[in-house]
Structures are given as structure tokens and as C-alpha cells.
């Protein structure tokens, strides 16, 4: 995943990629040859069957559903792109683009807060002498709680009437900061981003910690010996070496943020309160699929699922290939 192993000191000095590691001679089994194909097939089959049943089949059935008309759970006939036209037309289209915009804002905010802080914590904890283990565990702990529970707890803490957050702010005289966090359209989405980051910050931190552990300390030490400040050494030496890890974190964050549902649902309800200012694609899908008295709901919801998949898959693939090119240039 994080391919820092390819970067050998020799390669770095020469400004080119290190030669690929020498291939080990194929291990010889007792039988002296590769097992026949059907033996291999038997080993692969269980995983392949699970993958087909739970990933490939639902994907294709969603695509198929989206091309049909529906009466409840009864398919009525091929309607072509009608469900997609419904999805992008009139007020439905407006809501789709608005939700998409909120997802992108959610991703941008998360990258800014969660990824940056995750990296900062990883770098700082690497140096920490005492309490490193404890802090690592503490940061990762919220990860273990369901987003629905996290959302519920935070909506209690942020409640204007019962919430601890505003009570504390008022108690220390910061009345001006006691805001309707989840009730103001300008604050609701940023609040969600912060709560989400509070829960998931341990994830980028762990990935960056692993990536940092894979970096030989010599580079940074060499830079420091040459007189670079700690900040310059980090910015010009360590950070470029972390690009592969940053790429992985970005893509995974993107996928997670595009599909976010539970936290928003728990904190802002199924309509993305207030006034739709936190409506995201996941909520739109939830409403289209489960809150929709239209007998054609399954077709419309499947069309939305297909569109979301194309968004997420397309952008992830594009991002990955761009990142690959960056990595290649760094090598």
C-alpha cells in the first residue's frame, strides 16, 4: 500500500528508481511442479464466489433495476434512462447537485482538518518519548464507536438547551462563541466535519505513523546536519516521501466522505437540517429508497446508486492515476 520500500538511498542519490528487487527463485514444492489449474481454482473459488455474490451481483442488479419501471417491488418493464431523467430533472436535479456539493465540501473540510491533524499527530507522536502508546490508543478509540452513537452523543453535547458545549462556553464567559452549532445553516456542515474528524482522526494518523516508520531517519538527519530547520526538513524531505501515503489517505477519505450517511442522519435528521443545508447524497438516497411513496422508488433509488457509484469510482480512479504519476516523478 505504502510503497516507501522502493526508495533506496542509492536510488535517491542517483535521482532514479532503484532497480527492482531481484526475483527469488520460485519455491519448489514437494511435487516439483505447479499444481494443476483446477486445484488453484478450488482455492480461489470461495473468495471469488463471495465477491461475486456480495459485490459484483448487487452492482449489476442495481444497474439493471435502474433501467426498469417499478410498482413497489414488482418490475414493470424496460424504461431506458427514464429513472435517470427523473433524477436529474426539476427539483430532484437541484437537490442532487446540492447534495453533491455538500459531499465535496465535506471532503475538502475533512482533508483540511482530519488529514492535516492526523499527519501532525503522527509526526509529533513519532518524537514523543512518554505516553505515545496511550495517546495513539486515545486518538483511535472513537473509531470503535458506531457513527450513529457518535452522532447522538454530539447532538446531545451541542444541543442549544441541554448541551455541554454551550454551557461550558457560557460558564467561562465566551457567550459570543455559544452558537446554534447544528441549527445554523452556515455552521451545521462545518460542525459535522469536525465531529466526523473527531471520530476518524485515528485512521490517517495510523497510516501516517506506519509510513513514517518506513522512512529511514538518515534523510532528515542529513538535512538537519546540513543546517535545515526542523520545519524545512519536514517540508522538503519527509513530506515528499509521504506522498504515497497521502494519496492512499486521500482516496479512502474521498470514498468515505462521498458515502457518508449515518453521522449526518443521527445529527441532522433524514432531511439534512436546517433547511437542507446538510443534505448529502447518502441522505438523498435514503429518502429516495425508503421514504418515498412513489411506487417507482426502487428504480429511482437504483439510478441514484448507479450515479453515486460512477461519481465515486470515476473520481477515485482518476485521482489514483494522478497520484501514481506524482509518485513516479518523486522517485
Amino acid at each position, binding site marked *: 500500500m505504502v510503497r516507501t520500500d522502493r526508495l533506496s538511498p542509492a536510488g535517491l542519490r542517483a535521482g532514479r528508481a532503484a532497480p527492482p528487487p531481484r526475483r527469488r527463485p520460485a519455491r519448489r514444492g514437494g511435487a516439483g511442479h505447479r499444481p494443476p489449474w483446477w486445484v488453484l481454482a*478450488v482455492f480461489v473459488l470461495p473468495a471469488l464466489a463471495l465477491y461475486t455474490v456480495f459485490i459484483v451481483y448487487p452492482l449489476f442488479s442495481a444497474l439493471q433495476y435502474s433501467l426498469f419501471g417499478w*410498482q*413497489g*417491488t*414488482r418490475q414493470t418493464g424496460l424504461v431506458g434512462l427514464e429513472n435517470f431523467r427523473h433524477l436529474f430533472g426539476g427539483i430532484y436535479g437541484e437537490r442532487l447537485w446540492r447534495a453533491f456539493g455538500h459531499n465535496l465540501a465535506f471532503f475538502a473540510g475533512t482533508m483540511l482538518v482530519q488529514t492535516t491533524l492526523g499527519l501532525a499527530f503522527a509526526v509529533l507522536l513519532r518524537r514523543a518519548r512518554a505516553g505515545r502508546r496511550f495517546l495513539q490508543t486515545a486518538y483511535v478509540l472513537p473509531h470503535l464507536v458506531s457513527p450513529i452513537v457518535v452522532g447522538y452523543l454530539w447532538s446531545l453535547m451541542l444541543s442549544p438547551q441541554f448541551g455541554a458545549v454551550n454551557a461550558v462556553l457560557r460558564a467561562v464567559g465566551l457567550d459570543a462563541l455559544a452558537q446554534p452549532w447544528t441549527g445554523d445553516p452556515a455552521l451545521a456542515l462545518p460542525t459535522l466535519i469536525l465531529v466526523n474528524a473527531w471520530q476518524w482522526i485515528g485512521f490517517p494518523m495510523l497510516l501516517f505513523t506506519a509510513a513514517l516508520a518506513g522512512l529511514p531517519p538518515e534523510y532528515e538527519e542529513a538535512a538537519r546536519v546540513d543546517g535545515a530547520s526542523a520545519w524545512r526538513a519536514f517540508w522538503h524531505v519527509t513530506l515528499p516521501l509521504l506522498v504515497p501515503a497521502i494519496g492512499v489517505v486521500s482516496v479512502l477519505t474521498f470514498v468515505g466522505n462521498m458515502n457518508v450517511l449515518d453521522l449526518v442522519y443521527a445529527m441532522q435528521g433524514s432531511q439534512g437540517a436546517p*433547511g437542507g443545508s446538510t443534505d448529502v447524497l447518502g441522505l438523498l438516497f435514503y429518502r429516495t429508497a*425508503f421514504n418515498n*411513496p*412513489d411506487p417507482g422508488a426502487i428504480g429511482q433509488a437504483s439510478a441514484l446508486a448507479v450515479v453515486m457509484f460512477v461519481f465515486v469510482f470515476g473520481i477515485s480512479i482518476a485521482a489514483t492515476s494522478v497520484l501514481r504519476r506524482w509518485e513516479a516523478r518523486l522517485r
Partner: protein
Amino acid sequence: MSVSRHLRTRVLRAAAVGVALALAGSACAPSTDGGGEDGDGDVTLTVWSWRPEDAEGYERIFAAFEERNPGVTVEFRGYQNSEYPAILQTGLTQSSGGPDVVQLKPFGPIQSFIGAEQLVPLDDEVDLAAWPEEIVAAARGRDDGRLYGVPFAFQTLGVMYNEELFAEHGLEPPTTWQEMTEAAETLRDADVIPFATAGRDPWVLAILRETMGATRAGGGEFAEEVLAGRTDFTDPDYTASLRTVADLEPYLPEDVTAVGYTDAQTLFTSGRAAMYPGGSYELAPFATAAPDLEIGYFDAPPAPDAVVDTPLTPGFADGSYGVNAASPHRAEAVALVEWMATEEFGRAFAEELRQIPAVPGVAPADPLLAEMRGNYEEHGTPYMMSVYFGYGEPLGRDAEGQALADMLLGRSTEEEAGARIQREISAWFEPTG
């Protein structure tokens, strides 16, 4: 070569064990549910509901039916309200092991099950001729006009108040709008929130508008005009009713758009808010959360410049019981819903559950509920957004609640709100006129 053969036998054996396990697994699944029949030809009917809190009450209600129908056992299974629509959708698709009798949400949500032919038409089985049509409409197919359920409960909207707080501040249930706002003023000056409501949840705001603003817009007559295409939601009387409600903002909880439904309930049950504009369905949860709370009830007085100058009690059927078309025990299931249309069921329902029974002529046991129902019979009006405008997405109540939230936030005028509601509802609604 012998090693290879050994490997081959081992792989084959493993594969065989795997296949056997898979077969055993799939064979197990249906055998846990033998279609609800045990050795003696006895039948177990499974009833699905979105009200798990009613389980004990239903056990006692169904005992009467079981006594009358030896060999039939009725099993009540409650699911989380928010999960129920999805669970029901799957349950009705199952070829076996699904429910026999199901609670159906009223009006809009039932239509897709009817379209999929998953419910048994009941016109020839159950006679509801004596029932008010606006109640029976909750269980009718919108396209075919046929009956697919027996309505069980009925809800009214009004203002519940904390009697102790009212007495403490020398207040009486108001009979005019001015008395009501003066009472709200008094309460606010004493640091009591006058009205608890949830600005975060659009459906709660829609209930608030209907409760407080129905008189201003003209109640059921306005809805009929819209249905006939003679006016729409940009009508000045309707938008003025939105303004009436938004003008109550000073008397609502602070930062009301951040207040969720359960927060609003808690504000009332904890005594921090004195009044709760809402439905009769709140009384049971209020009694559970605060058993000592003395609750009174009044209809919202006519709003300033109201089209209808007497109070209105909005009401709606809350749901119905229908029969799963895939049920292996259709005859017994139909007999059960038939029984649910009788006075015997209505009385048991009224006694066991703190709700208003839909069966005509059966008074709820609870005095407050009896008062609410009496008021509805005297000057009732259909809760417009549920009864007429819940047949498409966005639901009328959500469109209205969202627009009202924007007004409370100061982001839009009542004219803009009305235009937006009209635009969103017309995405699926067409007047018949």
C-alpha cells in the same frame, strides 16, 4: 505422484465438506419457520408493527380473538419506527416466513405495496360503510379506490399544556389568539419556554403549522380548493398561515432549528416548556417519560385574520392493518383484520393502548383523548399534508417544514416559502379539477 494424489484427495474432501456445509446452511434457513403451523394444524399469525411499545397491550387485545378462534395464535412483533418501512418492504417480498398481518402507514406509503400486489383487497371481506371516508381513505389504493386495510388509530392535533406551570403563573387555557400570545409572554418573562417544538425536523414544523395555522388558511376547504386546482400554495391565505407560525418564533425554544424531536419532547416533559403543539400520539410517550406530569389540552384559537373564525381540530388516520398477499394463512389473517373493524376490538384497543381507536362510536378510555376526539367530531378538519399531499416525494409535510425552517432562519419570506412548497409538491402532484 503420490503427493499430488494426496493433495488432490485433500482438496476434494475439503471442497465436499464446504459444499455440504453450504447445503446444510441453506436447508436450515427455511426450516426455522414452518409457515407458522405446528403438529395439530394450529395456526400462528404474525402481526408486524412499528410500535414495539404496544406489544404488551396487543397481547391482551389479541387474547380475546384467540379465545374466539381456537387453534389460532396471534404473535405481535414490533420494529423500530424508523426502520419499519424498509423491513416491511423486505417482509412482504419474502415467499415464506414473512408476516401475515401488517401495520400499514396511512395514505402515501401504502401505494407501492398495492402496486406490487402484495396486499389482499378487503372490499368484499370487511364492511366499513359506516366509517368516515377521510379515515378509510388512509387504506385505499389511490388508483383503484379499493380497500387494503382496516384503520386502527386516529390522531388529532392540538396544544398540550403543563397544568402545574399554568397554575403557577396564573394562566388559563386561552380561547383567543391574543390570550395565547399574552400567556406566552408571561411564561417567557418567567424564563419558561412557551412552546416546545423541533425546528430541526420538518415533519414537526408541518404539524406546528397545521395546529396553529389551519384556521388562517381555511382548513379542509383550502385543501379541497388546491386538490381541485382552483388555488395553490402561493395563495395569500396559505402563505399568511406560514407567517402566523413563523411569527411565534420568539416563543419557541432558542435556536429552534437545532432542536430535534426528542429534545422538544424532553423540554415539555421536564417542565422547561409549558406548551407542546402536537398530536394525540404524544400522550403515551409523555406519560412514560413523566408519569406525574399533569397535562391539559386546548385547540389553538383562530389565528389573526383567520378564514375560519372558530377553532379547528386537525386529525388523520394513523395507519391500518392489512393482509400480506403471500401469507399462507390468508383466511385466518383476513378474519383477524375483520375482527379489528368490530367494536370489541375498538374497545379493547381503547382500554389497552393510549390511543384514539378508529372504530366509530368507541370512545377512548383516556379523558384527554376523549376530549380530543370529541373536539374533532365537533369541528374537525383533515390534517392536509398527511391526508392529501403525502403521495409523492418530496412529501407535502417535508416541503412545508423545510420552507418553514427557512422562514424561522430568516432566509425567506412567506411568499418565497409558498412558491417553493408549490414547486416541490407539483413535482408529483396534479390537481384533478
